[in-house]
């Protein structure tokens, strides 16, 4: 029997500081054993428990795409014990990963549809995974138009800056990057994510919206999509809860009878309507 509590050994092969405030970093982890890499089959939208012996574990969405071979990436904000320790780590350090855990963005459901990806601030990690998955040459044909609306408070807080620039060059991707307030060097769009969504006004025809961001952004963005006639079945989001086991046993991440760790984190708004409002 595979022991789901034992982490897979990995080495931190690369650390990228994402933002000016230096409190969000992307950690590239490489598997110490080749067979673990083959076993770690994941889908965009899933997460894993980052495991630092001596400190504990923290559930973090997988930011890389399965189309990127040889490593997995996690973008982590420095916040609690485990993530603060991660931020002090150097490349070459050994640590553990438990996963992949949870459901995923429903790739089969998304196939053949126009996809609108909406992200705010730091909640862009599994959306980045999804975008990189969809635009990979093996997959791009499987999806219709892809529109991305991504915003942060200021230019320095946008994550994956180099990648955003690469994506903006592509003709098969409608990129809309915005900041609440620009600075002297910012030449891009200014405005809150909900306002930009209204402006871009993606069609709801054969379309699915995938939305992640801070609660305040979600609250003001959803009405825009309702006005655009997106049904609740076609609006997806990902929930976060405090977690420990990640496999539906320890009992703290349930919303009603659903466990965010194993039945989620991805839910459609229609599914969330069926659940108790406790998240």
């Amino acid at each position, binding site marked *: 029997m595979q022991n*789901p509590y034992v982490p897979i050994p990995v080495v931190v092969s690369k650390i990228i500081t994402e933002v000016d405030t230096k409190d969000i970093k992307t950690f590239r982890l490489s598997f110490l054993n080749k067979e673990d890499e083959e076993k770690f089959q994941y889908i965009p939208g899933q997460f894993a428990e980052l495991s630092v*012996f001596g400190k504990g574990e923290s559930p973090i969405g997988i930011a890389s795409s399965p189309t990127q071979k040889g490593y997995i990436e996690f973008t982590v904000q420095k916040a609690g014990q485990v993530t603060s320790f991660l931020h002090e780590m150097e490349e070459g350090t050994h640590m553990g990963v438990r996963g992949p855990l949870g459901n995923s963005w429903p790739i089969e459901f998304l196939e053949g549809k126009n996809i609108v990806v909406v992200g705010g601030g730091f909640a862009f990690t599994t959306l980045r995974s999804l975008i990189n998955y969809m635009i990979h040459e093996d997959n791009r044909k499987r999806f219709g138009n892809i529109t991305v609306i991504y915003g942060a408070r200021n230019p320095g807080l946008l994550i994956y800056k180099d990648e955003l620039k690469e994506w903006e060059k592509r003709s098969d991707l409608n990129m809309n990057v915005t900041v609440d307030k620009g600075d002297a060097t910012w030449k891009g769009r200014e405005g809150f994510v909900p306002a930009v969504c209204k402006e871009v006004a993606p069609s709801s025809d054969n379309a699915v919206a995938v939305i992640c961001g801070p609660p305040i952004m979600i609250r003001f963005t959803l009405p825009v999509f309702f006005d655009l006639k997106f049904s609740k079945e076609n609006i997806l989001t990902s929930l976060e809860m405090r977690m420990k086991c990640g496999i539906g046993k*320890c009992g703290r991440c349930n919303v009603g009878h659903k466990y965010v760790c194993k039945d989620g984190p991805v839910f459609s708004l229609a599914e969330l309507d069926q659940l108790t409002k406790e998240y």
Partner: protein
Amino acid sequence: MEKRLIKKDVLAGIIGRIAGDMNLFAPVLDEDNVLFEPVKDGNTALANYKNTKNAPKAFFFPRSETLMRYARKEKGMEFAGLGEEAGQAVLFGVRPCDARSFALLDLLFDQEKYKDPYYIDKRGKTTVVAMSCTKPPYSTCFCTSVGGSPTSADGADILLTDLGDAYLAEFLTDKGAALLKYFGDVKADAAADKKKEEIAAASAGEIKTTIPAREIKAFLDANFEHPFWDTIHRKCLACGTCTFMCPTCHCFDIQDEVKGADGKRIRNWDSCMFPLFTKETSGHNPRPTQKERWRQRFMHKFRYYVDMFGPIACVGCGRCVMSCPVNIDIRKIAQDISKL
């Protein structure tokens, strides 16, 4: 199914012989408490007892358990093996409500996907010998309201029932049958079965409290928000005693402990009654007050578990009712809900 009749005066000898061959735990008098303890070194299994103070879930799901060990190496801490493996054991004299809690916990820890190897290992190596309640031991017993009975065999490998002059031993599983040799060779006859049925009916009939455990499900389904939830938690101290005593409560925390170059990852019982249980690093807490925590505890037992697995996650042992320092009574909550 094999059935044996055992003369009452030979039971102590049977317990002694099994305890000589393997670890056997039975209700033992420890100061004023009846607790499951090893039967050895002068500890004698009680012949007459009501129930143990603590639920026996700790044998499969210990209060604190090492999941793995690790060691400090040049490049960071590295995995250094699992915790200790469990040995073979016999739990002798488990009351039917508590034995049923094992069957309920199996549903969670032994699912098709995501099996819990620690629980499953101990459960598989432990033989559960249950002892029917020929008379419900407490006024707070309500097993018959939540799917059990004083003679329920759920979760047990062997069920003993006191027929007055002898015990009827029913060997319910292969694990139980493996202990057959200790129980003599007097086969039980139809008269013994009939007697057991009479005792079962009489004992169930003596249970004083009934609660509308199934009937309130419709209310719970429809009323996550309801003024009633503002009433039950007010005197709760958030001490967690109810969840600690409960045979089916199974929430846990995972923590790391380091001493020098050695560390271990352990899991400890946790409680949905505690404010920190769901509090996130950001400060956000989806269950910010005791109201939401009580609603969670009650809903988990009478609504969510039912939705997930079918049975109610309560065995009616009454421990939470007896041990709550401020007399919150889960039976009364269910009864009050049924009147709304």
